[in-house]
């Protein structure tokens, strides 16, 4: 066991798309690691944790606590505290932006709109997770169709002058629709921008269901996509804060909460 002054903790967020780990020393992030889950949760979880530990120059036994959230959290082989993603993202955003009271999380499986307290606790939340129509999974799907790197989706979208109107909500059919738009010779940036609009409309419809507070932040994989962020801002008519690394927000939250428990 470590002394009180230096308390090392790990936070993991084993999502359906990405597995994320952070190592923290008290409230400071020492290292992090992100990799695709690729359907193998336990493997991905172990890899990111070891990777992050290595980067921090620590070993498993240095850790005082481990917190984990995400679809694949139950695949961890060692003792940990399981926390819901909603709480982790709230706390993680609070870590970056203590003044934020509304968090929009656009994840691979679900989108969530969470009102948080000043301690980063959940005050209210709305989740959409029956239908993939409002989640960021669709970004990956379309990136593949358009043969665009995920990283470039946002910048491309901002160049669009004439966003294509998507007529479907379904993520699967959106893919087909994108394919035919390509065949019709439409520009990639317009297709991507259209997609961002459609997705943003869904997300903002959800956001309407709880009262958006003054300061809002966006997180989760979708926040990496500047095109989507701008589109959501347009729909909710509010500025959104984005942390430097939205992927690991949940993992940070997990680490912070685990320490308390």
């Amino acid at each position, binding site marked *: 066991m470590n002394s009180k002054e230096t308390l090392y903790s790990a936070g993991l967020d084993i999502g*359906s798309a990405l597995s994320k780990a952070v190592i923290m020393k008290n409230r400071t992030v020492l290292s992090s690691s992100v990799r695709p889950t690729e*359907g*193998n*949760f*336990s*493997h991905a979880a172990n890899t990111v944790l070891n990777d992050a530990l290595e980067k921090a120059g620590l070993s498993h036994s240095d850790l005082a606590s481990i917190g984990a959230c995400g*679809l*694949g959290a139950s*695949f961890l082989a060692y003792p940990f505290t399981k926390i819901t993603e909603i709480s982790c993202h709230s706390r993680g955003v609070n870590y970056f932006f203590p003044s934020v009271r509304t968090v929009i999380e656009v994840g691979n*499986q679900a989108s969530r709109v969470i009102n948080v307290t000043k301690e980063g606790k959940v005050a209210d939340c709305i989740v959409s*997770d*029956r*239908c*993939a*129509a409002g*989640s960021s*999974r669709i970004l990956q799907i379309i990136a593949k169709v358009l043969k665009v790197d995920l990283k470039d989706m946002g910048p491309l979208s901002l160049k669009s002058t004439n966003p294509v109107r998507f*007529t*479907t*909500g*379904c*993520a*699967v*059919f959106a893919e*087909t*629709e994108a*394919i*035919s738009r*390509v*065949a*019709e010779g439409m520009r990639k940036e317009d297709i991507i921008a259209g997609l961002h609009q459609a997705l943003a409309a*869904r997300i903002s419809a959800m956001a309407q269901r709880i009262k958006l507070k003054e300061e809002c932040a966006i997180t989760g994989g979708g926040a990496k996509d500047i095109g989507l962020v701008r589109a959501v801002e347009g729909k909710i008519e509010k500025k959104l804060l984005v942390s430097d690394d939205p992927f690991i927000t949940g993992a940070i939250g997990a680490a912070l909460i685990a320490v308390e428990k």
Partner: protein
Amino acid sequence: MFFAGLDIGSTITKIVIKTEDEIWTSVIRPTGAEHRRLAHKLMEEALQKANLTFGQLDYIIATGYGRINVPFADRQVTEISCHMRGINWFFPGVKTIIDIGGQDCKGIKVNNGKLVNFVMNDKCAAGTGRFLEVISEALGVKVEEIGDISLRSTNPAKISSLCTVFAEQEALLRLSEGVSIEDILAGIHRGIATRIYSMVERINIEKEVALTGGGVKNVGLRKALEERIGFPAVVPPEPLITGALGAALFAQEYVGRIDKKELETRKKERRLEAVTFFGEGPTRGQNG
């Protein structure tokens, strides 16, 4: 006389050329985005295969998702009527038809060769051929093979997600838990069969039942559906072409109705041209 039916499906384009009493030729090709405007090329292919010229076709009917913009067709008929007609030709006794296409799924009730009722789902990919394509791609098997693979299952996995996207992820999750691929596929087939069944049950499934559309080329799904329905169903020798066949049958019927002169002038004016504009007609809602 020769009658042509052209079924521009969301996924697959099918052409049937028939004479008064038999199917002369059929062609099946992917509709694929880049092929959409190439319906006339497929027509050429079919004509070549049939050893006919375009002028020899007496009447052409287009059906399916892309039916509206085929300039060389004499008329458009919905795929619902065409499937009904095609099945009726094969199996006159059939009362209920379940058609599983690429992007939709339908239940059709027939009585004495007349369409009496139907239901369809085209809002959500769950329950369509697309669903199976997505799953098979994720699992890295060919969509043509998943049916056979699933038949080897002894203990079908439980896949609870209804959404295609989540079901895909759930399937991967099960795989990483060590569930075998045949059990996953069998579970997937069960899930989709239940979904299709409960939609079609709305119009009251009555014996005989025929299954058609590309989806039932999958024996796993076929079996799962029959289990759910509770009795065996009939399947045409080539389930993909029932729509195109139905269209050709309608063509034959229409020719009987119009006079010779009109037919001749019509034939003269007709040109085998590219599909003018493939407006993706249907606006899809969402399943919230």
